[in-house]
């Protein structure tokens, strides 16, 4: 355990003093502050007039005409932060020829990968937790509406989901850092996978759904089938699972309708009321579990491969 703690402390100190951490923190804070600006512009009046019980959460979900909301920013940045903290975890030690020297010290081999993984999660948690707190603090002062207990709980769950999601990307990048010798290769592969899930999979899902169930002159059943196929394929992507879960958690009113096919005409006739935190969690539980499981799987595979690797100095 002391070995893990020593590696953990060193990695944490490396992260906090690294340029990549400062740049990422700056970017995330910039995104957070710009989203406060946008939301404050849009919700101050709404808050005074509205009877919405979740005004405080709007700080995180309100988008402007040009600038997107905080949750859009964060869903974009979290994978980048995760990848940056994982892509060179092992192969940089190997290429700097530190690994064999490190493993010749009286520590178990897994102390290295465990310490690095825990330090990455801690750094990720600090970035996410701090930006949510900053937005909450500034927002509270500007809009003057304090969060209720349910909003606080929803924000806590939001933070946990963000950490799980970031951990997944970090675990994936760490896996490539174990498999690949060069840091450039591991970051490129990680980013390629992120781009695929983020941008290309929705296009592919739409193309497949339209090929199987064309929407042109489609019956209601075909439209539903098209939606189901598209959703099913999109849910291969952790990005889709993450977006669904944070939307339902932070937008309690009506966002659950995104998960199933609903006609626009039906929505127009609906009287929407917010669903409870319990109901929101039930809706997104599969997504949360899958994100968590993916993070664990990525780390477990990295761990096994690292433990089986031959350690040589050359």
């Amino acid at each position: 355990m002391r070995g893990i703690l020593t590696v953990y402390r060193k990695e944490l100190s490396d992260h906090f003093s690294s340029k990549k951490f400062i740049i990422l923190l700056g970017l995330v804070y910039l995104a957070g502050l710009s989203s406060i600006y946008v939301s404050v512009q849009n919700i101050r009046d709404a808050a005074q007039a509205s009877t919405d019980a979740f005004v405080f959460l709007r700080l995180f979900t309100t988008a402007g005409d040009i600038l997107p909301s905080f949750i859009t920013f964060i869903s974009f940045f979290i994978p980048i932060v995760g990848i940056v903290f994982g892509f060179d975890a092992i192969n940089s030690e190997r290429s700097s020829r530190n690994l064999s020297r490190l493993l010749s010290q009286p520590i178990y081999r897994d102390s290295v990968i465990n310490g690095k993984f825990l330090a990455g999660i801690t750094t990720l948690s600090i970035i996410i937790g701090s930006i949510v707190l900053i937005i909450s603090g500034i927002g509270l002062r500007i809009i003057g509406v304090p969060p209720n207990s349910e909003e606080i709980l929803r924000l806590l769950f939001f933070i946990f989901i963000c950490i799980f999601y970031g951990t997944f990307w970090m675990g994936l990048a760490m896996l490539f850092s174990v498999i690949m010798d060069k840091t450039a290769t591991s970051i490129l592969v990680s980013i390629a996978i992120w781009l695929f899930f983020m941008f290309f999979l929705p296009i592919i899902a739409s193309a497949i759904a339209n090929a199987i169930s064309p929407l042109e002159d489609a019956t209601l059943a075909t439209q539903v089938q098209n939606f189901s196929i598209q959703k099913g394929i999109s849910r291969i992507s952790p990005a889709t699972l993450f977006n669904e879960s944070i939307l339902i958690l932070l937008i309690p009113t009506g966002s659950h309708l995104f998960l199933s096919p609903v006609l626009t005409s039906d929505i127009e006739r609906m009287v929407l009321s917010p669903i409870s935190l319990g109901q929101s969690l039930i809706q997104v539980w599969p997504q949360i579990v899958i994100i968590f499981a993916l993070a664990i799987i990525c780390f477990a595979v990295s761990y096994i491969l690292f433990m089986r690797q031959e350690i040589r100095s050359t």
Partner: protein
Amino acid sequence: MNDKNIIIEAQNLTKKYGSLKVVNNLNLSIAEGEIYGLLGPNGAGKSTIILMLLGLTEPSEGTLKVAGFNPTREPLKVKQITGYLPEKVGFYEDMTASQNLAYTAELNHIEFKTIPKKVHEALKTVGLEKNSNKLVGHFSKGMKQRLGIADVLIKDPKIVIFDELTEGLDPEVANQILATIADLNKEKKITFILSSHQLNLVQKVCHTVGIMSKGKLIGEGRVDELAKNIVGDSKNKIDIEISGKVENVIDKLKALKSVKSISIENNMISISSDTDIRQEVSRTIANSEDVLLIKMDMKTFSLEDIYLNYFKEV
């Protein structure tokens, strides 16, 4: 060699990768306080033996004990008393020499309050105390090697393993490092294993050498003992070319002190002796009738000759 003094013992040690035997049925005994040179070309199995000694890879067959511990079952106990400096040593280049050593000290569970003193002592031993606050990225290769020695000394090891320690260093620095090793061996009774193919350098400090080829130990012993296997009891070989009557001089040469054997082939005479007797030989020939000395060469058997001879046999 007394059994009590054996610190490293391998019996029928074999390491296979698939069907390839990298280390083949190796029997090895290294006494406490000995400087042991492990010699052999690339791919001879030297590094694999080192990895097995440190518990970084598991033997396929046979037994291995390091200070009475099994490196596979008790790797931490072995690594607590064994320092290892890999062939291409790496340090964290954005950290100072002191910080790098302090990290190693922490990994070795050395008490926090004693770490600065230990670090200073280790740096002083290798003559780097003035560079303690310099970033390792600015160190020359020789300085890094010396820092590597300091790194292994931090834990007060009983055994130190150096893999190609003097590789790529200029002769002056290499000699300084070897002198440090000899001093440490004398003062602290540390057992050293030097894996190398720079035979002339190893010869200067090693008490015993083991010559490896294709995973097998093909020769082991003191350098002079190994030389005996090739040229008998004598250390020097003098080759003489004479003109005239060879028989006029042979008996006189045989009568010279320290001559072990003489062989004749036409006008070429080979004399094996324990000491340099060139003066006596030339005087004897000059005093003999009808004999003229044309050429005389003396060869002292170095580790390189022994090494090459073994490989010629293999």
